[in-house]
Each structure stands twice: as structure tokens, then as C-alpha cells.
């Protein structure tokens, strides 16, 4: 009896989609994605923001926007690691991301369910190396 479930037969298999943007499907759970850094399955609905664009656990993002947030015009699709925290004049934190593949920078608003420990570690990263702080504050 011939094999009927051979992978080369029948319809071509769809490549599994990993990324911050879902393929063009609407409906239930349309914004869900799997994190490119820690492989966590993240629901698209996020408290405090309309569009989630980074993983709440490891803060990794994906390079899909070019100049305007949400334009999905970048062809890079590289992984973006969190580089630092910036503060807007109204006091809201923004995460600065850098693309590991092309080096471009981007900022994202933090989200209500982001990992607080990861955010605080990121904000305290300049103070991690005591030699720099000592040179900055104690000399001169």
C-alpha cells in the first residue's frame, strides 16, 4: 500500500511562521506570535497598548517596521534585542531595540504585562560595571 502521507505528495507544506506579525489572517487570535528570542507563545492582546511589538518575557522584538511604526515595510526581519531604556517627557518608559542583523535602532513603548525584572535589569545596565560609575562620579 503506497504511503499517503509522504511530505512530497499533495499540497506543499506551509512554512511555519515565526515572528511578531501574523500572516494576513484576521479573526480570533489574529495578533498572536511566537517570540524570536525565547520561543514563548505570546497572545496579541496586551493590556495598555493596542499593538504588542515585543515579547513580554525577554523583551525581544522583530525588525518588521522601517520608518513609521506599523508600516511593516522592512525586508530585514532580523531579531531585535533590547539595548536600553529611554524615558519620554511624560514619564513613560520606552525600550530601545537594536536589530542584530542590520544594526538599526527602534523604540517601543513598554506594555502592561512586560517582565518587570527584565525591565529593571535593562534600566540598571549602565550601572552594572562599577568601574565606569566610579570614574564618572568620584573622579574630578
Amino acid at each position, binding site marked *: 500500500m503506497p504511503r499517503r502521507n509522504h511530505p512530497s505528495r499533495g499540497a506543499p507544506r506551509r512554512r511555519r511562521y515565526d515572528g511578531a506579525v501574523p500572516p494576513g489572517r484576521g479573526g480570533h487570535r489574529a495578533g498572536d506570535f511566537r517570540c524570536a528570542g525565547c520561543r514563548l507563545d505570546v497572545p496579541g492582546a496586551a493590556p495598555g497598548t493596542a499593538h504588542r511589538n515585543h515579547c513580554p518575557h525577554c523583551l525581544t522584538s522583530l525588525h518588521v517596521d522601517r*520608518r513609521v511604526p506599523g508600516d511593516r515595510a522592512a525586508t530585514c526581519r532580523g531579531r531585535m534585542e533590547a539595548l*536600553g531604556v*529611554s524615558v519620554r517627557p511624560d514619564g513613560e518608559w*520606552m525600550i*530601545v531595540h537594536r536589530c542584530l542583523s542590520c544594526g538599526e535602532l527602534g523604540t517601543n513603548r513598554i506594555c502592561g504585562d512586560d517582565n*518587570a525584572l527584565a*525591565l529593571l535589569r535593562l*534600566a540598571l545596565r*549602565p550601572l552594572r560595571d562599577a568601574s565606569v560609575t566610579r570614574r*564618572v562620579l568620584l573622579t574630578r
Partner: protein
Amino acid sequence: MSHPRNTLRTSTFSCTWCRVSVPVATADGGQRNHCPACLHSRHVLDQVTGGPSTCLGAMSPIAIAVPRAGDWTVVHRCVRCDELACDAVREDDNQLVVMRMAVRPLAQPPFPLEAFGTL
């Protein structure tokens, strides 16, 4: 700005923000691209294409970031076109301004920091 081939005169630029006149060359022989007094820069390099930019807007410092292996870098945002750029902190930058920018997130944390005392 003086002619680059004239070695007798140091080339300087005037900061777009605080108007301080600063020499382009640093003491360690590098090239400076932000003001050491207020850390502001000017948008002369297009980050997406890599070529010269036509914007020429002032770029304000928004954050101090630390790559995994490396020294402190200051992240700039153009006030005209919102583009971001990254630049290493130099030895003769105003250390108080740099340090203020580095600890600024802790002034207004989005969650209570007391919870971390029990971890």
C-alpha cells in the same frame, strides 16, 4: 568650519542646541559627533541608507544604552524626522549629564521598586 587640509587651524563646529563651539578632533585622535556639554548632535548621516542625510535637524539624547560587550553609548533622536542614531560616549563628555541620562528611568519607574526588595 575651517578647511580640513589646513592643519594649523583646528576645525570646530557650533552645537545646534547650546551653541558651544567645540573642536571636531578629540584628544585621543577620534572624531566627535556630539556636543560634549549637552550631548546633542546633528542629523547628518542617514541611518537607513547609510549616506548623507538631507534632514540636518538637531538630535536630542534620549537614552544611555550599554551593548553586551562595549562601553556606554548615547542614543539620539532627531527632533525633525524622529530617526534614531547611536554614538559612543567620549572621555571628555560632561559626566554629570551622562550620569543623569543613565539613571533617569529610575526617577519615574512604571512599577513600585519596593517589590524588588523581597526578591
